[in-house]
């Protein structure tokens, strides 16, 4: 965007309210101020990021999941949406924080996800004598390959609770990932900004 130093300084000295006010003025007054709406959304976001950075919490402290379960959650989230050549993984995108926060406030999630993580450890202990976190990598993969496919319940009904748990976690991990900055950029979404005119459709494919 090539924001100059003086503009950054202005951004620090005005509030989000001023920014929104300026959009109205800019759009009504014509060309000279048209650049202000184009900057406004960006400035508003920047201010929120600063407010966030100013809060003392550096590292996220889980509100619901005990440390052991939270570590398991981190592993599962990154397995569901891992880092690839385009973007970072679900953990980097903050999906586990999002999931923990919602779960701390919702009894239904507590039973599906909290209970589901317990189920996973029980399943692994029965099978490998270790909870999921302590299993070897190939054992972890073996378990995920069992509970990530609904059809596996057809052959082994004892998997059905694990499959239901994983389906919920997959969906919530997607929510956490695609509501993050990383996920938004991964999809190449363009917008949430102020335009003087709407350009319409670039060119429709056949």
């Amino acid at each position, binding site marked *: 965007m090539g924001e100059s130093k003086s503009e950054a300084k202005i951004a620090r000295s005005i509030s989000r*309210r001023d920014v*929104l006010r300026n*959009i*109205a003025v800019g*759009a009504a007054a014509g060309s000279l101020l048209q650049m202000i*709406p184009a900057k*406004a*959304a960006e400035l*508003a*976001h920047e201010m*929120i*990021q600063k407010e966030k950075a100013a809060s003392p919490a550096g590292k996220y402290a889980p509100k619901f999941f005990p440390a052991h379960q939270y570590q398991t959650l981190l592993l599962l989230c990154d*397995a*569901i*949406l*891992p880092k*690839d050549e*385009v*973007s970072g993984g679900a953990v980097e995108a*903050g999906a586990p924080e*999002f999931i923990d*926060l*919602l779960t701390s*406030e*919702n009894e239904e*999630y507590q039973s599906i996800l909290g209970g589901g993580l317990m189920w996973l450890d029980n399943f692994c202990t029965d099978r490998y004598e270790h909870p999921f976190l302590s299993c070897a990598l190939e054992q972890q993969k073996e378990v*995920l390959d069992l509970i*990530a*496919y609904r*059809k596996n319940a057809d052959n082994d009904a004892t998997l059905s609770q694990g499959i239901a748990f994983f*389906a919920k976690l*997959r*969906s919530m991990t*997607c*929510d*956490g990932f*695609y*509501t*993050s*900055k990383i*996920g*938004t950029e*991964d*999809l190449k*979404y*363009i*917008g*949430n*900004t*102020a*335009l*003087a*005119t*709407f*350009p*319409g*459709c*670039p060119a*429709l*494919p056949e």
Partner: protein
Amino acid sequence: MTQVIRSPKMYDVCVIGSGAGGGMAAKVLTEGGLTVALLEAGDPVNPDKDYKMFLWPYDLAHRGVGVGGRAAENFGEFLAPNGAWKIDGEPYTSAPGANFQWFRSRIVGGRTNHWGRIALRYSPIDFRSRTRDGIGEDWPIRYEDVAPYYDKVESYIGVFGSKENLSSAPDGVFLPPPKPRCTELVVKKACDRLNIPCIPARLAILTKPLNGRPSCHYCGQCDRGCGTASNFSSSQVLIPPALQTGKLTLIPHAMAREIRVGADGKASGVSYIDKTTLTEKRISARAVVLAASACESARLLLNSKSRLFPDGLANSSGQVGRNLTDSVGSDGEGYFPQMEKMPPHNHDGTGGMHLYIPWWKYARQNDFPRGYHIELGGGREMPGAGMFDDLCGEFEGYGASLKATCRKRYGTTITFSGRGEMVPNPDTLCEIDPEVVDQFGIPVLRFQFKWSEYELRQAKDMQETFRAIVEAVGGRYLTRTQTDGPYPFGIQPGGKIIHEVGTARMGADPKTSVVNGYCQSHDVKNVFVADGGPLVTNPDKNPTLTIMALSWRASEYLLDEAKKGNL
């Protein structure tokens, strides 16, 4: 409640509710020189603080779904404030099997803060449906009576659209429409092949500056409330000019409880609960305009029982609360593989669709009466929670393949929302629950609701049309609906479309209607209903524009009557 606090002031009019109808009444009446007390059950709204324009999901800890994920069912955390299906301490009940859903916004401006801004005129035939097909009732007024007020409302609030000369969707006073989005051009191509019209939508959003309000900046977030008032809301477009007259007293946190009646049989004012102190207060007024929303106004009339009016005020016909309808709603979505090839681009536009499908089969014999329109959505919208729910619902596996699939599928889905006319039936109404009161001690509403064969067949037709459109351009229709159960063909529960109207029906005959053609009570001449209550039919036109046109017309009539000393 130890003591009733009476305001010493006598107002000309007490308006109850500050949404589309009440805001319009307050504006027209104060500009006409009358003093108005405007009661609003909710909080004041502060657009700078309360509207979440330009925020990203990651700017909020809950990413848009709210505490415990529960805001998702109320259209998410970004929605303009204080609208919900359930309000703590203010319940409503449903008769067994009715499952009626009632969305209320306790805030100045009411539901106009977040509404879809779809501003469609009723057509001439919508006022004379019974004459045409023998079902329901005709209106006591005609399109020609309302048309000048449609002109006034559109000119004042700003509506974009295009001249089309379609008899089912009359043209109005339009600002230029925005250019179509890619998804809409794909649908239009399909519609062209099927001989279905697909035309610019008609939304109350400014594409040019109007009356001091700047033009839209195309962030696509109208439902969050607009920081620049470039779309219409009562709170930003109707209340401010009313306040400017110096004749409006806006009273928030005021839950109207009863309309009081004098010995002469006329309304003398309104009792309300001040929510901040839980005390009863009274407003004295020479006339009362109910605009609390169709069902809330019916509740207020039914709760206003007195020796003179034992069945509730303005209810000698017994019709208050009856003839309730919502729009028929059934939704679907299709996957369009050609959209995968679209380069990333800004798809936001105005909040809501740029093209829509008006009712087109009006000249044919259908197996249901009346009609529906189709609203379009989808495409490269701002990513949000729930965007990949459907994909996750059928995806097998995890990892790189899931990420690649989401990336490929993003922006390739187009949604279709059929919105059609429900015909009033005797099993659908609201009434006072004999046992339940809200936290203010006010008896609450109980709903009865039933879809008839008419509406079910209409929903079936919607589903068939959606599929035909999707498949006409090589898409895959994704929606599966049941043919039986309580909600066949994807028909939504009653109330879900938030177009509930008809509970104080207008008519020429006081025995079968509540108000006359000027929204004035037959029984109590200084009581008017200026929300969705008086609407006789609920055609496939979202009711807000008509509510405002009728409110403007009723308010001018009220001004005239006041001048003549008839109130």
